[in-house]
């Protein structure tokens, strides 16, 4: 297996210094080239799990291996796209995308590489713009190009389209699918949208909350493009909804409890 997540636990201390389980006994194997969504309600630790894979967060116990190597810190073999584009505002689009290439490539080669990926997200004409001159959707596409430019084996995406409007989001879904088909990256995609996960991924990991555990591992084998198979998509959606309903109720009742305690 390409990515191996072994017995990963993550605990935080809350305000009264009591340990809170964010992730409990997470075990997951992912094949190379697979598009995997991690789906769950807010607070289920799905972003924390992604952050651990990225090497930005440490586990309390357990470890993650990619291609046989244990992850201890962030690395260029894993490109990350966040919910906010996280572009550097003082750099142009081109400079942003060449940012990770500065050390290992000559300027000209870096720019050629960057241009290739910017064209892939259809922003080849915007290389000398600054981030503030672009719309949210365009910024996110630059962020995707930036992550791809390092040519990582794995692409980690943390609700990358969560802050965008519906139309932009569905357009970017199409682009992401194309990029995935073209580059054959292994993609770990965190989302709380059931339909988004069904539309995009080969496999959906459904997570539950308090503590964050894996509830279901669902294989989606609907042929692409999936827009033409609406019924199959709806079937899976119903199936997932059943599992998530309980979890969402749990979140809601806990929030009510919290509100009532004041």
């Amino acid at each position: 297996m390409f990515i191996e997540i072994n017995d990963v636990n993550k605990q935080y201390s809350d305000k009264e210094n009591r340990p809170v389980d964010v992730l409990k006994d997470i075990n997951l194997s992912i094949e190379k080239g697979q598009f995997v969504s991690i789906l769950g309600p807010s607070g289920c630790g799905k972003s924390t799990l992604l952050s651990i894979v990225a090497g930005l967060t440490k586990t309390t116990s357990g470890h993650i291996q990619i291609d046989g190597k244990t992850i201890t810190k962030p690395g260029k073999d894993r490109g990350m796209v966040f919910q906010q584009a996280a572009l550097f505002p003082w750099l142009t689009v081109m400079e942003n995308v060449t940012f990770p290439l500065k050390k290992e490539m000559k300027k000209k080669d870096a720019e050629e590489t960057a241009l290739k990926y910017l064209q892939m997200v259809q922003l080849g004409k915007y290389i000398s713009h600054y981030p503030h001159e672009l719309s949210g959707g365009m910024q996110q596409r630059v962020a995707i190009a930036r992550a791809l430019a390092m040519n990582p084996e794995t692409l980690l995406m943390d609700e990358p389209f969560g802050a965008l409007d519906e139309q932009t989001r569905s357009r970017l879904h199409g682009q992401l699918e194309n990029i995935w088909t073209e580059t054959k990256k292994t993609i770990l995609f965190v989302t709380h949208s059931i339909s988004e996960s069904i539309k995009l991924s080969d496999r959906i990991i459904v997570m539950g909350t308090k503590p964050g555990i894996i509830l279901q591992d669902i294989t989606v084998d609907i042929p692409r493009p999936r827009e033409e198979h609406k019924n199959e998509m709806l079937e899976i959606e119903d199936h997932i909804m059943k599992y998530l309903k309980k979890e969402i109720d749990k979140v809601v009742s806990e929030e009510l409890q919290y509100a009532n305690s004041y």
Partner: protein
Amino acid sequence: MQTAIKRIIFFAAIIAFWEIGSRLEFWHPLIFPSLSSVFSALVEGFQDKTLIYDLIASFKRLAVGLAISLVIGTLIGILLGKSKTADETLGAVILALQSVPSIVWLPIAIMWFGLNEKAVIFVTILGGTFVMALNMRTGIKNVSPLYIKAAQTMGANGIDLFTRVIFPASIPYVVTGSRLAWAFAWRALMAGELLSTGPGLGYTLRYASDFGRMDIVIGVMIIIGAIGMIVDQFIFQRIEKSVIKKWGLES
């Protein structure tokens, strides 16, 4: 109504009141000279070049003092922003020092350097350093963790992370810090010059006062205020605005 028009009307009213009041002798010219006599004193000062030498001398000191204070302030600010221990110890001292008017340092400066150029520049440096340091510190502390995380996933760390991400991300604070440092250094310089030897705007101000030349006193004060306003509005506020826009900090 546009700001410019409001300002013109406002200043016209003040000027009219001032000139008419002086001509009707509402107050004695030795207490407050008329606008026209202030104006002619300024013209005379520029014609015999004394005011020009004063301006050059003052700006020379300011340039040296401000440049040094920006460098030292930036370095102290980076130290405070990066090291928690430094922030908890040295940070408290800097905060205390910032509330000390820099002219208070002049007696010490005179003891160390004598009543000369060096003492005035020393006071000017102290005027700008602390406010620059505190802004630099805030800038470093306020760098979005998202930028740092993003940079780490792209292989940046250590000094590379600092020079390519943390420092550029805090540029808006560097600009604000420089703007305040300029204003504080300018004040400190004028105060220092009042007590030192010439040439220099502050020196001429005191000299004129000693000789009862109220027209020159008011004229020099107007120059000091006008320079302060022009530099702030036309240099620093413009840079600040464009940086705020580019860094996406507009609310």
